[in-house]
């Protein structure tokens, strides 16, 4: 086999310009795909990180049906103490879960004593919320960012509302809410800070202490609208989701229907569609790469067979079996793929390294100077490399087959 490769290398070097051109095409394709995958992959990871670490957490648990009617923040679908206890027990026993934060969510009216507007309120335990969505404090654009997220009697208001209602840090405002029984209650708060929105839900969300929320809603028992869950390792998302679903979605009520439901961040955020679009674009880019390799290698191999018909006739006449002629031409295609892939991978990795040295900065919402650090995994590189080499061999198959089937007499007569 080594001897066949040696001859294949010589044959490729015979048509140097054509071989180099094919290498260049494969290299350009490889670099385009690997760079695209590394940059978009890093962008996706960063954006997912922003969403999970500042709003949603990795997973959320709700009462069944809550998410379907989440726009109205239904109080009648809050979790009761029995369910809360069950969920917390399960989360405690799940080793991939780092922490979680209970939230009480409801819609209310916000008044600065002059004007009134609608607001969505998140009642949170400040310590647990900051631990579950650690980027939340960094979204505070005005007010104190140090210490606890907020204290009882304080409110973080969304920036859109702050601008519209001309509310400032330190202002006293009133929140009015209707509880599940239909009775209206109000409570005054001091504006602790103004909070920037992140892509996805939460654009008009304010934050108060969970005890204040329960007091405002006159809850007789400690209800929770949702649990936001942070994992130790985000790559364990699917595994944890499956475990939680098994543990929490299994039990059913007296009608035989599940009581709880588990959602990942992707189920709850519209960014998941963007992420899917990025994945789709990656597929398209891969298709372009496959086409480039297929066409360029096939072109060079078809030409090689056409120009070497007499030579093929000679080696067939002296007794070279058709299988070995096939191997010889397949080896040439394989070498084109292997060498092109090796060069393309090296250049891609060098460019990715360069992008990490000369960092790409961008701004997303309030997040200033975000640094994009393109990265690509060995598995991704290996997958693309195998794909290119495989396609190169595939592209050589037809010309190689044709070469192996040439009639020696006709081939020897070829001019």
């Amino acid at each position: 086999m080594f001897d066949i490769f040696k001859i294949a290398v010589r044959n490729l070097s015979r048509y140097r310009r054509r071989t180099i051109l094919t290498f260049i095409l494969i290299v350009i394709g490889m670099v385009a795909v690997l760079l695209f995958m590394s940059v978009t992959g890093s962008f996706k990871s960063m954006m997912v990180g922003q969403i999970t670490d500042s709003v949603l957490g990795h997973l959320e648990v709700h009462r069944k049906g809550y998410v379907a009617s989440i726009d109205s923040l239904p109080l009648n679908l809050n979790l009761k103490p029995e369910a809360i206890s069950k969920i917390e027990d399960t989360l405690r026993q799940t080793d991939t879960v780092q922490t979680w934060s209970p939230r009480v969510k409801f819609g209310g009216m916000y008044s600065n004593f002059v004007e009134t507007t609608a607001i969505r309120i998140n009642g949170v335990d400040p310590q647990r919320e900051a631990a579950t969505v650690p980027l939340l404090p960094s979204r505070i654009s005005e007010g104190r960012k140090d210490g606890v997220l907020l204290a009882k009697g304080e409110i973080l208001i969304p920036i859109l509302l702050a601008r519209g209602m001309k509310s400032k840090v330190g202002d006293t405002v009133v929140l009015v809410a209707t509880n599940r029984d239909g009775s209206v209650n109000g409570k005054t708060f001091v504006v602790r800070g103004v909070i920037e929105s992140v892509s996805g839900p939460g654009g008009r969300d304010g934050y108060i202490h969970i005890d204040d929320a329960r007091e405002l809603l006159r809850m007789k028992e400690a209800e929770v609208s949702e649990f936001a869950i942070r994992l130790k390792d985000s790559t364990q998302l699917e595994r944890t989701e499956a475990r939680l679903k098994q543990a929490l979605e299994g039990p059913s009520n007296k009608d035989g229907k599940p009581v709880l439901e588990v959602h990942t961040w992707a189920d709850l955020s519209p960014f998941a569609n963007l992420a899917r679009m990025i994945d789709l674009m990656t597929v398209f880019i891969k298709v372009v790469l496959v086409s480039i390799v297929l066409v360029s290698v096939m072109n060079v191999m078809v030409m090689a067979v056409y120009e070497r018909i007499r030579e093929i006739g000679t080696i067939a006449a002296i007794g070279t079996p058709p299988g070995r002629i096939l191997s010889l031409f397949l080896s040439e295609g394989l070498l084109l793929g292997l060498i092109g892939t090796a060069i393309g991978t090296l250049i891609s990795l060098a460019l990715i390294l360069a992008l990490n040295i000369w960092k790409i900065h961008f701004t997303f919402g309030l997040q200033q100077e975000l640094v994009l650090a393109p990265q690509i995994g060995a598995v991704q590189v290996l997958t693309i490399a195998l794909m290119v080499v495989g396609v190169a061999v595939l592209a050589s198959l037809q010309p190689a087959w044709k070469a192996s089937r040439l009639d020696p007499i006709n081939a020897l007569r070829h001019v």
Partner: protein
Amino acid sequence: MSLLTASGLTKTYRMGEVEVQAIKGADFRIEPASFVAFVGPSGSGKSTLLNMIGCLDHPTSGTLTVLDTDIATLDRSAAARFRGLNIGFIFQDFNLVPVLTAYENIEYPLIMVQKWPAEKRREQVTRMLKAVGMEDQADKRPDQLSGGQKQRVAVARALVSNAKLVLADEPTANLDHDTAYRIINLMKKMRDETGTTFVFSTHDPKIMSEAEVTFTLEDGRVLPATHKQEAIHV
């Protein structure tokens, strides 16, 4: 026992609607270690006959037995194997692989056809290079060799795998007169040294006079052999 026997051998080609009979009922025998020429003008059927002897083509009718094998029974792969083991070829245009050196061209059948081990290959190729007087040109590629040198390499390539029969189709047609003589004499010398049967075609009267047995082809018919020595019986 004959190396090669043809009996009632015919070959017919179809060219469009017309059938052309290239070989018309040939009967002949060739003995081992003989030096044979098929002579005749262009289009007389020399190449067709050599192609059939070389298992590159099948007869339309009749039988052709080479080394006790009826070549009509060989399929494509079996014919390739048979050629690789028993038959060497020398071509008018030399047909050396242009990317390989003289040494590598001679070595080629031992790698691609017979898979000899490296050490045995080296010994055999070196021996063949010396035998054809090309040991000093071993590292040169075909485009660095003269026509005569290329044909010497081709002779060595034909013999390197210990072929029992070497077929040469117009081996001197692209060579000047002196070189042509040297190549024919080299072939004869190699026959003497190895006992290999050489069968070549030519239409050059001076070259054909070097053959020990000559078959003349006229319009697809093989005429009775003329002998320079008593080696062949028709």
